[in-house]
Every structure is written in structure tokens, then in C-alpha cells.
């Protein structure tokens, strides 16, 4: 068993079960708005995807009862949350905390992959491009959310607050000097 695996918190199963009945269309809309906000603040992220900027990705938090389908759509991203496997050219699966830690630069993608905390299927090149582009963007998901206003802001704030409080997943980018 790898060392990294032991340190990655899992989403509490009881809460995950509760999420099975959460209606998904509002979540999809919120995440689409959220991703567009990120695209606007970090145009380099989608530029860095290069030839994969229209490749459909499936992000599969294995401890949640749904998957997130991300279509970069040339920098005007669309996000759909679906139950089941979802469809895409490349799939990245792992605990929610690993996926988010990857985004925040708290984990190294290769290390997570070698330890099999992350599993990549389909177009490995596309998954790699997404990983590299996200790593360069130095995203702070909580900060991005804090800057969202309008009708969708409220449900998103709720989700983030709830997740952070109940799961121990750090949704704010750690100070890089202390990330390890």
C-alpha cells in the first residue's frame, strides 16, 4: 500500500449516499458557470490544452455517486454532472480529495498515478494535457468561488462550505511552501 493512499481522505459514505438524490441539473449549471469564470480568469489554462481544447473529459470522483463531464469547448467550457459512467475521450478517476488536491498543486499527478490513487483511461495524452494545464494555472477553487456573484453563487457556496466542513478536503490552495 502506498504512502499517498493513506493520506487522502475519502468523502464520507453517508454523505455520498445523500448525494444520490440531489438533483443534478442545477449542479451542472452551477459548475458550468464556475468553469467559465475560471476560463475567464485563466485563459492560459485552455490555451495550454492545445489540440485537446475540444476533447470531452470525464472526471470521476470515485467516492461520489456521480461523474463530472467537462467539455473545454475551446475555452467556453460546459460541465454536466451525470450518474453512471458518463462519456468522454479521457477519464480521470480517484477520490474527490485527490482530484481537488491535484488542481491545487497539493499532489503530484504522476505520484498519484504510480500509487494508483488516480486512474487514467482513454486518451492518456489528453488527460496529461489537462493535468499539465491545470497545474500551470495555479487555481484556488475557493477563491474562484468567492468571486462568483449572481443567482448561482448561493448553491455553489453551500456545496463548497458543506464539503470542506464535512470531509476535511481542503478547497483552498495551500501555501506552496508548506504543501509537503
Amino acid at each position, binding site marked *: 500500500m*502506498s504512502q499517498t493512499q493513506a493520506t487522502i481522505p475519502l468523502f464520507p459514505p453517508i454523505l455520498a449516499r445523500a448525494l444520490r438524490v440531489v438533483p443534478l441539473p442545477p449542479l451542472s449549471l452551477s459548475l458550468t458557470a464556475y468553469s467559465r469564470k475560471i476560463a475567464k480568469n485563466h485563459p492560459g489554462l485552455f490555451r495550454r490544452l492545445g489540440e485537446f481544447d475540444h476533447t470531452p473529459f470525464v472526471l470521476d470522483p470515485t467516492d461520489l455517486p456521480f461523474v463530472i463531464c467537462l467539455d473545454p469547448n475551446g475555452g467556453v467550457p460546459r460541465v454536466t454532472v451525470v450518474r453512471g459512467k458518463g462519456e468522454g475521450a479521457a477519464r480521470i478517476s480517484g477520490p474527490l480529495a485527490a482530484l481537488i488536491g*491535484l488542481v491545487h498543486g497539493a499532489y503530484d499527478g*504522476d505520484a498519484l498515478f504510480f500509487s494508483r490513487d488516480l486512474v487514467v483511461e482513454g486518451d492518456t495524452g489528453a488527460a496529461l*494535457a489537462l493535468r*499539465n494545464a491545470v*497545474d500551470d494555472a495555479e487555481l484556488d477553487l475557493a477563491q474562484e468561488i468567492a468571486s462568483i456573484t449572481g443567482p448561482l453563487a448561493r448553491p455553489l457556496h453551500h456545496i463548497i462550505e458543506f464539503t470542506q466542513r464535512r470531509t476535511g478536503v481542503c478547497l483552498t490552495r495551500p501555501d*506552496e511552501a508548506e504543501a509537503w
Partner: protein
Amino acid sequence: MVMEIVCPAGTPASLRAAVKAGAHTIYCGFNDETNARNFPGLNFDRTEMREGIAFAHSHVSKVLIAINTFPRAGDEGVWHRAVADAESCGADAVILADPGLLDYAACNHPHLRRHLSVQAAAANADIINYYAKVFDVKRVVLPRVLSVPEISAINAETEVETEVFVFGGLCVMAEGRCSLSSYATGLSPNMNGVCSPASHVEYHEDNGALDARLGGYTIHRVGQNEPAPYPTLCKGCFGAKDTTGHLFEDPVSLNAEQLIPQLQKAGVTALKIEGRQRSRSYVAQVVRNFRAAVDALEAGQPMPEGMLARLSEGQAMTTGAYKKTWR
């Protein structure tokens, strides 16, 4: 003098992370086939390079630009422009492998410092001195086929600075002399800047067992919870005669942390970390460790204990060719 830590940056964010973590020198490449880590989503456009170099210089770090693939016949202009742009972006040196490109750089950009890439596989003092004489090469990155005593012997016979790999991925083949990847996938380190490219990798998970294929060849099969190495050809699992296993190299990565004092005694100038494809957090972590190690050495303190195992492939480490028994 403190040994120089030369550290990889695949993205501007990694470059900044490396500088902040204490790297003396960063190496990186343009976002095209001119560099040997031409991976999707990696590397620097011209503006990013200029800004990255300015950032590094403002923190008294240096930047080397790797232009270390072999220019394609008929398209040498792409590589020539990369050399010219490296100079105008303010690079402290370029890292080159191709004799034709070295000749071009020496004739047309004489004031741009030239390092010899590991891709040139210059493995003895005769050829290193020849590169110095003909192309005025100031530093050579030694191929990962040499033992510490051999490195020491080379340094005794040359004025050219030597740089050696101390951490990260490990080529078992002489670098720049390998076309295993293009044989199986059509894409090679020398021509395309990629080895065992992700675009040709397929994983299949079946009841927890994971098969890894490269170009349709199954070269790994691991059980549930076993580490899953990337299917790099030379580290694949193969069969020959009655033996099945990692016939060329185990899925290990290089860690010569504990050999730093010996490498210093051997006359090595700079310690190189592999991994332009790794994340900024990886880069920062590795740099911090190695910076602490060389600072300790300089202060006469013992080497700090290694903390880097979990960052490596399959969580296994080797000192590679530095110890002669590796051969």
C-alpha cells in the same frame, strides 16, 4: 563552491515554484518539437519564456533552454529560430545535442553559452574535449551510463564543466541513441521530443488487474494495489528464454541524493533533476531537498535523510549506473 542545483520546469508555474524553492538554475523548453519533453500541455511560448527568465533573474536564478532534439531534415529553420529566440529571451545558455545545430549556434550566436545535452551521449573525455574545441561547449550533461569513478576520471581530463542527473526518471539506454519508442509508436525522443508517448498508451483494468499497452504491445500487468508504472518501453515487463520480468530495467527512478559528496569529490559542477513533465509541487519538493543537501555539504553537515520516495515511479529508487554493479 556550492554545487549547482539544476531543476526542471515544464510550465511557468513550475519555474516560479522552483525558483522560490531555491533552485540555482532552471531548465525548460519551448512548446514545440525542439525540446525533448514535447508533451501535451507543457512548455513555454516565447512570451512565457521571456517572463519566466525575467522572474528567475530577479531572484538571481539562471535559466537554460533545452533545444535538444535533432532538427528534422528540411526544417532546420524551426530549430535555428529557437536558438535565436533563446538568446533574445535572455537565456543564460542553450542545451544542444545535434552537431549541426551546435555548429549553427557557435557560428551565428557566439555569445550564447552552449551546454552539451545528455542527448549527445558524450561518454568520455576525448569526445567532450572535442566538443569544447570545435563548438566551444562550456558544460556537458553526462549520460546516465557512467559510474562515479568514471565521472571522476573524465573531470580529471577536461576543463569542461560536468552536470549529472541525481533524481527522477532514468534512461537505461544511452540517451539520444535510442529508437525503441519510434519503433513501437512512430514517435521518438530524437525526432519528436517524446518517449513512449501518452498518446499511444492504453490502460485496461480488469478485476483490479491493470494492463498497460504501448502501441498495442502489452508491456505491463500488475495486480490490485500494486504500483502502476507508466509503460516506458525500457522499463516494461518482457519474456526471454524462461525468464519473465523487467529485462532491461525495473520501474525504478534515480535517486543519487546520498552520492552527492562523492559526486562533488569527483569534480561535478552541477546536479540535475529530471522531470519537466512533473507538477510544480513535485518540483518544489525535490528542489528543496536537494538544496538542503548541497547547503549541508557546504557547511560540513551530514546529508539529510531522503524524503523523496513517494514522488517516484513505483516508489522504488536506484543509484543507477553510478554504482558499477548496475551494469
